[in-house]
């Protein structure tokens, strides 16, 4: 009895192993079949595989653009290499560019890194501006990717024009106007007016809610709308004298010291939970954030959120596509980058992902998803964001903008907001941090 069981088990194992082996062989066989059929239609040229290095969610795959392009160009294969976090993605790209190997055929560059790329890596990128009609792009977007001697190293993908997303129902309970035009009128021109409305909100705030998600988000929004950030137009660091930084800092300090903030950190899990629980009534939202809000706030927020024009036209985020000179298929890569950033394709990405185009000619035909529009109370999203996009000020950027902004937001402002430090202490802490960042 016992031996027979053992034997039958052995048989089973052998059969299983055999089945597995044949399965694997079959797998190999079918693979090679595919391979030969692919090379069949390449009319002797053979396939070219282009790799596209991106971070986060670019939406090209989601909008079916790669498939579409491969159908148009049967000899091209596209492979996307995605890194989730930008702060992991960019150091990797930098080292690969300088090593002269390992970079993808198309490399995405985030706006926070574009100046560093322009100032230090321009030689490693193809002058992609020669092959395109540069007037397609917003002037300031094009300028960000162009060196002083006129070489354009990247084509603009999306931009992040800002609006204010707010909870109509909470505003009504707090006795504030809920009409988007009226609100936009009320805070027009100055983020401090938007903050002032917060004081009014907090007087009658619905239980468990605050006016805004965080002081840092107000800082970011206000700074994005100023004409001066951390660098002047000659490329000198002037963050501590910059009017833009000063105004944004003051707005953020009012928020941090008057109990109107939910004291969350953006893109933390707790921030996501804040959307779901409805613990704050407004957030400064670039176009790409709409999908995020819908996802995190969930069905219960549907129709309660609305979108109003921001106090000043302000930009947050956006990217570029560049082709490294080390690419073995430069011509094909440039063609693909050109196609992906053309107005028609940018409109397709907007329809899927709400990433806002950097090419104004696309604005007339923009159609957001019906779900998104319904979620935000049928607000005229295209109108609001294109109006903002057209008036965003050109802002000189610098190579260390990112760490400087981080030091102000996540050191200076956070200390005041969450640790009860005085604004002066917060400013000192941020200054010290920035000195360390700049190696001064």
């Amino acid at each position, binding site marked *: 009895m016992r031996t027979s069981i053992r034997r039958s088990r052995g048989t089973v194992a052998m059969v299983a192993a055999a089945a597995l082996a044949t399965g694997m062989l079959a797998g190999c066989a079918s693979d090679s079949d595919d391979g030969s059929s692919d090379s069949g239609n390449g009319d002797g040229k053979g396939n070219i595989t282009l790799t596209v290095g991106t971070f986060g969610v670019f939406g090209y795959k989601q909008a079916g653009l790669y498939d579409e392009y491969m159908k148009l160009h049967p000899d091209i294969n596209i492979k996307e290499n995605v890194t989730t976090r930008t702060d992991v993605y960019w150091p990797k790209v930098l080292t690969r560019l300088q090593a002269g190997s390992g970079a993808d055929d198309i490399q995405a560059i985030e706006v926070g890194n574009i100046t560093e790329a322009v100032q230090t*890596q321009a030689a490693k990128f193809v002058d992609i501006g020669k092959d395109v009609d540069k007037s397609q792009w917003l002037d300031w977007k094009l300028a960000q990717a162009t060196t002083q001697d006129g070489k354009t190293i990247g084509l603009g993908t999306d931009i992040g024009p800002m609006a204010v997303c707010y909870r109509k129902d909470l505003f009504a309970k707090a006795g504030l106007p809920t009409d988007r035009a009226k609100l936009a009128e009320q805070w027009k021109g100055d983020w401090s007016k938007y903050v002032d409305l917060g004081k009014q909100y907090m007087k009658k705030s619905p239980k468990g809610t605050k006016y805004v998600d965080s002081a840092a988000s107000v800082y970011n929004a206000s700074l994005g709308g100023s004409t001066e950030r951390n660098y002047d137009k000659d490329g000198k660091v002037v963050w501590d004298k910059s009017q833009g930084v000063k105004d944004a800092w003051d707005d953020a300090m009012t928020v941090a010291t008057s109990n109107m903030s939910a004291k969350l950190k953006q*893109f933390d*899990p*707790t921030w996501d939970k804040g959307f779901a*629980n409805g613990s704050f009534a407004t957030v400064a939202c670039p176009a790409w954030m709409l999908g995020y809000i819908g996802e995190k706030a969930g069905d219960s927020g549907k129709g309660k959120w609305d979108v109003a024009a921001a106090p000043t036209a302000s930009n947050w985020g956006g990217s570029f596509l560049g082709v490294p000179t080390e690419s073995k298929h430069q011509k094909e890569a440039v063609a693909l980058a050109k196609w992906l950033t053309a107005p028609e394709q940018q409109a397709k990405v907007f329809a899927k992902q709400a990433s806002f185009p950097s090419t104004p000619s696309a604005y007339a035909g923009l159609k957001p998803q019906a779900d998104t529009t319904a979620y935000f109370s049928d607000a005229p999203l295209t109108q609001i964001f294109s109006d903002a996009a057209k008036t965003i000020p050109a802002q000189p950027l610098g190579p260390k903008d990112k760490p400087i902004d981080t030091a102000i937001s996540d050191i200076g402002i956070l200390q005041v907001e*969450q640790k009860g430090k005085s604004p002066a202490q917060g400013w000192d*802490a941020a200054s010290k941090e920035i000195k360390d960042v700049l190696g001064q």
Partner: protein
Amino acid sequence: MTSKEALAHPASSAETAPGIPPGAVRGARGRGAPDGAPSWRSRLYRWDTKASPYAFVTPFFVLFGVFTLVPLLYTVWYSLHDVQLSALDHQSWTGLANYKNLLSSDFFWNALRNTFTIGVISTVPQLMAALWLAHMLNYKLRGSTVWRVVMLTPYATSVAAATLVFTLLYSWDGGMVNWILHFFGVDPVNWRESDWGSQFAVSSIVIWRWTGYNALIYLAAMQAIPADLYESAALDGANRRQQFWHVTIPQLRPTVLFTIVVSTIGATQLFGEPLLFGGVSGTKGGSEHQYQTLGLYMYDQGWIIGNLGKASAIAWTMFLVMLIIAAVNLLLTRWLRRSDDRG
């Protein structure tokens, strides 16, 4: 004395095995070779005996050299230069400036202090809890395998998953820890931004992940203790507690020292937990760097700020710190042994 014996025995047996390879015996016999000039075959044998062991260990050392030693030495070079991530080819000699910069930097001393305090509040409770758990599991229990597997699960969980859950548990607004504290009338603690709270929270993740692992090591060592030691102790009238203190603990001494050394090295390199606990811009380790460890500081300098020269200097300073700790450990061990021999 007993503990030394326990250590010495397996060590000596391990030495004999590779010491006399099978080929040596055969080679020595010189099978079929005439006297005088050795045949090509015996020469081959002899060559085999001498070279094979080296050939076997070569792959490891080649890989070690390429991926560890060369980069390691390269960081020495980097640490003496001004190297920016965006301009790797433009290195300018700065001598010890990076190190001097560190010594005069508040951020560095803060990180060193944090590494030390988080190391202490995570390692000490962790090892004590592990010892206690191992002691409990050493008794005859129902379903002992199940308990052991359960103990090892935190270790098998990824740092990212564990930290994410802990971040939610410790969240200020609606986190479970604050919710429980509220029943004891404690005001909500801002776990991420408070000085001690954040260090405690980070330590708790480390403790959760590593206690089971250490407990299993202790358990294995406990089960290797001969039963007759306990029997004779019992005959002498020692109760379980006394047996634990006078039989188990002395027998475990080498194991305990091993876990202390390993945990200390782990604590010096602590990185993943505080990074992920900090969430966005986690490399800062809180708004006042209240839980920025040396590992985080190095990463922040190197990859976020892009100052690779300074980051390399931090790496070597960390190495130095570890050497100092190892030396202290060694001295402590010697001192313990000597006092043991005397007692």
